[in-house]
């Protein structure tokens, strides 16, 4: 176990948590937002020599607030920062080796030396989910899914994998590809194509449909499996734009709608509806012709090559799927009903 590296950081340039967070996300495409946030906070602790508890907590709080402000959609991220903070506080309050009687340095050292481990565990929890969720994909069934969720991808691949279980499941996939311009990734194809290719390579017949064909295709699907960016307190999910409508359609057609998410994505917000999320989204943007003309003129004056704001944002716009549409959440702590989420959250907060 390495001792806290207090001296080395002072010489280096000031630690920028936002840049670190973005860098972490960029360098590892498999990393989820909460884990990147935890990782960034661990790195922050390495760089700042704080020896008292309140100093550390204060530092964490400030950096978290800064990080949340600088990221357009901090919902996923705040799940990670909250979890980290609560873990710290709870461990300190608990009797035992790392408790108040114990050494604060011990818990600090534990966190610092195990940053990699957290990432590994987070990735392993996907395997765990895949193991729980494999039972949901039955022989001969058709699964409808959307988006670029890595958990869903790993679940489906595991189900298709011969080595994954006693025998491979023969199933078909209807993959809803986002038609929005912004959701095209670097290589120029819609998000999720990678998963589609991986599944096809394993011999799973995949049909890709645009979002407008969901209602049409729902009749052919047996179950719907979606990923999530965050699971909120009432058991609803915040996820890629378009999930809500799939949920509504699945409910209308009486198809089970499952959400796959790691438990570190549980986040303590309680949205009352679509427009109650703690983020700015310019999805519904009313304009008159005059305003459109004004905007166009303004943009030409400032920089002629700037892209319109809307399409740049639309890759990460999210919507909220309320809990009554969700049949169950498949998490690494088991298959939960939506109401079980609040209990998990209460356990860490109170």
């Amino acid at each position: 176990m390495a001792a806290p590296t207090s001296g080395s950081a002072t010489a280096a340039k000031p630690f920028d948590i936002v840049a670190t967070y973005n860098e972490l996300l960029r360098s590892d495409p498999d990393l989820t937002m909460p884990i990147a946030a935890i990782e960034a906070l661990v790195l922050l602790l390495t760089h700042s020599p704080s020896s008292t508890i309140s100093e550390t907590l204060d530092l964490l709080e400030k950096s978290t607030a800064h990080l949340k402000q600088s990221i357009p959609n901090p919902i996923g991220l705040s799940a990670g920062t909250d979890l980290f903070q609560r873990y710290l506080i709870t461990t300190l309050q608990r009797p035992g080796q790392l408790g108040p009687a114990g050494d604060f340095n011990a818990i600090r050292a534990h966190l610092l030396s195990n940053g990699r481990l957290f990432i590994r565990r987070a990735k392993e929890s996907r395997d765990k989910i895949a193991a729980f969720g494999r039972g949901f994909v039955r022989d001969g069934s058709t699964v409808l899914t959307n988006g670029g969720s890595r958990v869903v991808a790993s679940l489906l691949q595991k189900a298709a994998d011969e080595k994954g279980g006693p025998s491979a499941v023969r199933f078909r996939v209807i993959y809803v590809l986002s038609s929005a311009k912004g959701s095209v990734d670097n290589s120029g194809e819609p998000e999720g194509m990678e998963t589609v290719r991986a599944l096809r390579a394993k011999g799973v017949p995949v049909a890709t449909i645009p979002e407008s064909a969901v209602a049409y295709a729902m009749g052919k699907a047996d179950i719907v499996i979606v990923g999530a960016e965050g699971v909120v307190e009432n058991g609803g999910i915040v996820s890629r734009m378009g999930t809500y409508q799939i949920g509504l359609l699945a409910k209308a057609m009486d198809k089970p709608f499952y959400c796959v998410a790691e438990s570190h994505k549980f986040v303590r917000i309680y949205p009352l509806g679509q427009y109650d999320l703690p983020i700015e989204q310019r999805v519904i943007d009313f304009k008159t012709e005059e305003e459109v003309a004004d905007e166009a003129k303004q943009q030409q004056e400032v920089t002629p090559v700037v892209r319109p704001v809307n399409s740049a944002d639309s890759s990460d716009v999210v919507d909220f799927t309320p809990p009554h549409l969700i049949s169950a959440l498949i998490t690494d702590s088991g298959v939960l009903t939506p109401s079980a989420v609040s209990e998990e959250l209460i356990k860490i907060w109170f």
Partner: protein
Amino acid sequence: MPSPPVALTPGLASFLKSLKTNPIDTSIDDLISLLKRRQIRHSRSCATATAYLLRSVISACRTSDANKLIERVQYVGRRLMAAQPREMVVGNIVRRVLGLIRDEAEDDREADFTLSDAGSESQPQTPRVLDDLSESLSGRHEGSDRSSSRQPFASLSAPPISMFSLLSHPEPESSLPGTPASASPSGRLLSQIHNKDIRAEVLDGINEIIDELGQVDDQIAAYALDHIHSNEIILTHTSSTTVQKFLLKAAAKRKFTVIHAESYPNNHEATHATVSGQTPDDDELLSTEAFQKPLIALGITVILIPDSAVFALMSRVNKVILGTHSVLANGGLVAAAGTRVIARAAKVHQTPVVVVSGVYKLSPVYPFDFDSLIEYGDASKVIGYEDGDLVDQIDVQNPLYDYVPAESIDLYITNLGGHAPSYLYRIVSDHYRKEDINV
């Protein structure tokens, strides 16, 4: 096939009688064949038989090593569950007994090892490697596999917080005095620690389960007055004794009307007997029920209707009270065929649906595939073989059970009280250990 020496029709009574005299392996085979032949079929009879059998299994197991007990119970449990996979109560009782053994083993350890978590890897390890979940995890011994088996031990100070498993400590403190012990085979470690007989404690626990099975209907009935009010019209279905006791309890104080759907073709004879008060000559039911007075003897108006009239009468019904075969972790249930129709009709008329069920029927199994839960019965009950010409030409099916989704149920009443369907997961996690869900 080793047959019981007692000259009774094979069933619960004959099984319990033979259990005392027969060697344990014969008894296990006996119960397996009874389950396979469906000679024991009521869920409570299955539960009782399983509990008694496991009690004999444990008292015949001359060891105080928790691991050996767990292995033995798991082995027997797997065979019983394989014999009749749709009879979920068997698995429930097996899981509860496994949980008992684990609790006792941990109590002991906690007493001796309050300080260290060092032995924590010990007991769930051997059996759990077998189930398919941990197969996928077996690649990593240090990571979250460890942390998940650690959870029960955290309970000495606070409830386990699964969300923290991501961040929790990766390995036991190397400075602790107890650490060297964790290197030794856990079985030996355990039996050294034990002075008292873990077996006696477990047997006590099983006796409590058996007592619970005996009292469960009365405990549920104690809630009857909260739910049945004067002059209400109650609709029920099948001859479930739990429902009958529930209604009888309320009938002692209040006057109301019962509409009883006859549940043709599988349960109508028993239903008729229940309504008219004739003793059902079904020796599987334990004798106490046979002495029960029918509702009509207490001055309750009982209207017997065919199942097809349910929808027509539903608009006049104040409350639907249903019995069940088993309850699943998501809040749905498997009950006698016809239940789903009633639940749907009630939904249409916004009539509250109350399900009465003992906690022992609550299964931690998540219903991945609803169709596989439905059992099909004797087709000749629908159309007799006398109609040979017809039987040749048509496909007759007689499903015994219905899957009713959680949305159609408003309230569950168990021996612990009333619960919303979405709360059942909580009762599941209180009653069964996570590591036992896949036996």
